[in-house]
């Protein structure tokens, strides 16, 4: 758990500071609140993520992915211990809201190291039984699932306007 906090500090010191100072400036504050709260009671509703048109592509692709029936956004993208969950929501909430409000984010949106770790953690949480041999107990830097299973959550990353006919063939 503590490691995760560290990874976030590491990735966005500013965000960390602000998140701790609960007196967050109102605009973003309420956004963040909405964001974090929004999920605490409907934490497995992908629609909530798709609230943001910016998340629409991921939502659409997730619905076509092998996991649409198996996992929701938060099950892959948020940590699953209570504190971690709230902390990450706070961070992401703050971060994404800010980004969305200011529209200053990098496109295409790309996952950040902190969230990659959460993701990997979640793959293993569900598939631990199947993959516990992998790495032969090598250590923390076990192979990243997404190296080979990038498609798990969102199907093929062919890119906007990418090869249509191959997407059909490759099914």
């Amino acid at each position, binding site marked *: 758990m503590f490691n995760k906090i560290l990874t976030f500090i590491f990735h966005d010191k500013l965000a960390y500071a602000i998140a701790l100072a609960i007196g967050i400036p109102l605009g973003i504050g309420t956004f963040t609140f909405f964001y974090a709260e929004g999920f605490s009671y409907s934490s497995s509703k992908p629609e909530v993520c798709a609230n943001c*048109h910016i998340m629409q592509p991921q939502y659409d692709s997730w619905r076509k992915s092998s996991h649409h029936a198996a996992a929701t956004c938060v099950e892959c993208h948020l940590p699953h211990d209570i504190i971690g969950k709230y902390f990450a929501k706070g961070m992401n909430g703050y971060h994404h809201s800010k980004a969305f409000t200011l529209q200053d984010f990098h496109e295409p949106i*790309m*996952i950040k190291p902190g969230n990659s770790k959460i993701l990997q953690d979640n793959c293993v949480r569900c598939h631990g039984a199947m993959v516990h041999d992998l790495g032969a107990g090598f250590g923390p830097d076990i192979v990243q699932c997404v190296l080979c299973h990038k498609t798990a959550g969102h199907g093929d990353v*062919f*890119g*906007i*306007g*990418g090869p249509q006919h191959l997407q059909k063939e490759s099914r």
Partner: protein
Amino acid sequence: AFFLNINDRKTEARSQYVKLVELTETDTDPAKWGINFPRQYDAYRQTAQKTSTRFGGHGGSEALPAEKIERDTWLKRAFAGYAFSIDYRDRRGHAYMLIDQENTKRLTKPQTGSCLNCHSSIMPLYRELGHGNAEAGMNEAYKYSYQDLNKKLHDMGHGHAVACIDCHDPKTLSLRVTRPAFLKALRDLASSDAPVPASLPSIVQWRKGPRTSPYDPNVDGSHQEMRSNVCGQCHAEYYCSNAMPLTFPWAKGLTVDSMESFWNSTKIHDTARFFDFKHKETGAEVLKAQHPEFELWNQGIHARSGVACADCHMPYMREGASKISDHWVRSPLLNINRACQSCHRFPEQEIAARVDAIQERNHQLLERGGAALVDMIDAIVAAKNAGISDDKLKPAFELQRKAQWRLDCIAAENSMGFHAPQEAARVLGEAIDYARQGQLIAVELKAGLSAK
């Protein structure tokens, strides 16, 4: 989106705009289209901006791009006696295509009206020349001098660079190919038994079918194919002069070798085997390759994977809630996040580094080929001066033709090898081998050893 399919987006895009003006087949002026589609028009006009990457865009001033033939002196030797040795510059943005053509000193040699095919919005003029039939028009155009036809074009009010109407149907806005030379070339390719190019799976389908009507990309091609075909109608190898209508050498396939064998089996001035020009120093009848982007890209992994020109050179960009295609057609390296990262989730500098590694390798081999070519020319000239007859030197001439064709196919191609890295390197490897073999023959002849 990963899967959001383009047709959705097209309808989305089309239903988006408020039709302020009616557009017809004679509306070549982009400004008028711009009234309905201001965002695409604004981007389109950006092509007038000077851009430059290590190998892309152009050096030199805005007034005039740098001279390729001064930078790579071996090119001047290769094209000795040909218009390209007079003036051969870096390409630049679409906005300049007509001006740059009108200003090139290559026009000091007589040039044909066909030149305008890819440098202007010529379709209405073709239809007039062909009494309504564009292909018939193209088959007339080559008989005109460049100056006469260009005057006609401007008089009719179509003196524009490539315009909206060249790629879009004015009614439905869907993509379409207009240039008869491209349509004919694919028609011939489809009805031959040549291997089907990677980018055109629809030809496989057509061949399976009844073949009642000839292959037509506008009818048979998939949408994704059209996103490359619109470019391929100009970014392709060609021959154009007043000796025959504008021709693409595709009937035997799109590889360097199959295009060569097409030219070799083509007759010019009725009798002679086809050639572009007689090399001034050696007298060899050699070929000239021009910007075979469509052909080389087709040999690469991207075409194989269904990645279109437009995916990289006109990537979608988000404008508020909707996505539009970036009509500022330019080097993708100026736009890596949209052009590449939608598919390659690596940091921008890593992607740039990959391209640079590919281009650097290609550039090394190209320079090596240039040196070999010059050595060969020197050796042949030396042999001639020593009184060796052209008859004896014929094998050397053949090798010069082969070497120069291959070298030029990669040198004239504009991605510095990126569009198909391994194939480009293979072709350069062959070019080097042929150039050195030609040099050997000349040296042996001069030395009085029988060329083996």
